[in-house]
């Protein structure tokens, strides 16, 4: 792969910057420089966990196709590898990369250099030690036995402590902000800093048993999405879509309405995972009602992002960041609508306890959050490394492997899971019939997972190149396709 040799002047010409613009630019560059090291550390370690976590995920997926494969080693049995995958990608990749994005966005949105940077270094060390300790503990057989909370308590403690140091630096930066108005992305970021530590600490108290423990488990499991991963993803989408397009968000009113409706409804959702369980009916019903009410904030976000992008969809052909983030935003709409429908008792009767739920979770954490984080990394890194991505074709490989991989994965598990659910509900059929019926879909799952892993390897390789400012120097943007100067000028909208 060779870098295009199109000269900078041939590509597009910008008018010289005025003195005021230079000053603004210098200020912005200083802010970016203040966040460089922490952001690179968060991204670097996050991507390392992404590769490890997706490798573990692929091993777990293949065990559905080849049950005896690696069965001789206790460390690599499904019951250990699967939680390693889940926790490595959630607390490793998504959390650390999300934290990196938050650090960068906070500097930009508060228009101030980062405060208490030392706390971020402490945070990234504690956080990674926590994940490392947790992953090793899972591999050797220690597991708390609750989904999303498998890590032993000391690992959870390290992660919680790391989060507090992280939040301290962000809050101190926020206090020094040089802006009067809080952009909607900052609302989501600050809300996640407030809610997630409470959620994580309460869930890890270890004072629950029986039905209460199950209720707490899913209150936590769903709220980890609600108060940490979703705000992080939406904060990114609300920043990068308008920024890349160069046009403000379509309706700021809808943006704030969406945020407060999100704050009101989302945290009640978790108990819909226990439809049919031995809980008070009202508790489950409240959760279902709140799940359906999520249509309000989701519609606000979907309409807003769509109307911001409409008329500029051609930019998706060129901009990697925009393509990843818009894919993520569309997946957010899809996964949220799916989640609201999935919470209904009649739907849950079939889909619950099947592969359908696994597909739904991947649409959320991968199709939505991870794709937005990929887009964010592609936008942020050239600005702080001061080096353009060397190989746009590798970005293309990453995008298509991830997009087709997750689409195949979700579609296969949704269809296969539904078939599995209907067969399990049929008393005339033996259980093994439902297992056999899912086999082709589980192969599709493994193929989708393999594609995603290939995309991650391309991403990780190029990330290493950019942090070392390696590979061919580029004098044009690392877009999927080069554009003519006239087209660039036409893109500028009044």
């Amino acid at each position, binding site marked *: 792969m060779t870098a295009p040799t199109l000269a900078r002047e041939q590509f597009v010409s910008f008018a010289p910057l005025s003195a*005021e613009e230079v000053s*603004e630019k210098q200020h*912005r560059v200083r802010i970016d420089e203040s966040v460089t090291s922490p952001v690179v550390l968060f991204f670097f370690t996050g991507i390392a966990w992404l590769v490890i976590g997706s490798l573990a995920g692929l091993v777990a997926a293949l065990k559905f196709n080849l049950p005896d494969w690696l069965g001789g080693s206790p460390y690599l049995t499904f019951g250990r590898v699967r939680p390693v995958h889940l926790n490595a990608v959630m607390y490793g990749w998504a959390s650390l990369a999300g934290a990196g994005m938050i650090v960068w966005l906070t500097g930009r949105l508060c228009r101030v250099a980062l405060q208490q940077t030392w706390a971020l270094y402490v945070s990234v060390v504690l956080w990674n030690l926590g994940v490392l300790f947790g992953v090793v503990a899972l591999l050797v057989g220690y597991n708390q036995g609750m989904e999303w909370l498998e890590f032993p308590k000391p690992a959870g403690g390290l992660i919680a402590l790391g989060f507090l140091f992280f939040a301290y630096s962000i809050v101190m930066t926020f206090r020094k902000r040089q802006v009067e*108005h809080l952009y909607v992305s900052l609302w989501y970021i600050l*809300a996640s800093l407030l809610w997630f530590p409470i959620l994580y600490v309460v869930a890890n108290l270890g004072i629950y048993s029986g039905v209460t423990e199950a209720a707490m488990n899913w209150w936590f499991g769903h709220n980890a999405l609600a108060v940490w991963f979703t705000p992080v993803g939406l904060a990114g989408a609300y920043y990068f879509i308008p920024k890349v397009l160069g046009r*403000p968000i379509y309706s*700021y009113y809808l943006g704030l309405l969406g945020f407060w409706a999100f704050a009101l409804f989302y945290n009640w959702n978790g108990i819909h995972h226990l439809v049919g369980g031995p809980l008070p009916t009202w508790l489950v019903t409240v959760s279902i009602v709140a799940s359906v009410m999520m249509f309000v904030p989701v519609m606000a976000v979907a309409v807003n992002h769509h109307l911001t992008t409409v008329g500029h969809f051609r930019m998706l052909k060129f901009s990697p960041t925009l393509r990843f983030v818009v894919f993520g935003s569309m997946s957010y709409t899809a996964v949220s609508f799916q989640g609201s429908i999935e919470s209904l008792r009649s739907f849950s009767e079939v889909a619950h306890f099947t592969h359908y739920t696994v597909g739904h979770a991947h649409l959320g954490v991968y199709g939505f959050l991870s794709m937005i984080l990929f887009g964010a990394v592609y936008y942020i890194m050239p600005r702080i490394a001061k080096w353009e991505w060397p190989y746009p074709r590798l970005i293309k490989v990453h995008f298509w492997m991830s997009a087709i991989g997750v689409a195949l994965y979700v579609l296969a598990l949704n269809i296969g899971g539904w078939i599995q659910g209907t067969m399990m509900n049929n008393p005339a059929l033996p259980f093994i019939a439902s297992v056999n019926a899912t086999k082709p879909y589980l192969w599709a799952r493994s193929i989708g997972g393999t594609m995603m892993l290939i995309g991650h390897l391309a991403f990780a390789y190029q990330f290493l190149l950019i942090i070392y400012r390696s590979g061919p120097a580029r004098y044009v943007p690392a877009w999927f396709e080069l554009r003519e100067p006239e087209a660039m000028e036409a*893109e500028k909208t009044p």
Partner: protein
Amino acid sequence: MSLPLAVIFIVSFVVIAGALTLAAFVWAVQTKQFSLKQLNEGANTIFNDDEPIGTPQDMIFNSPADDSPNPR
């Protein structure tokens, strides 16, 4: 016996989280975050003079002459 303790903890933390969220809302109202001016202009706050509205921002250039980056 674990149920009452769990309930006490969960209710306490939910009340704290709810109170903090409510306090954030009150603070936002008091600092005029929802004023008409802010709502009309808030969307523009991510742009400035050197990253203006109307110019797509997904681009960065390097200067081949002196290897000094010129990020936009």
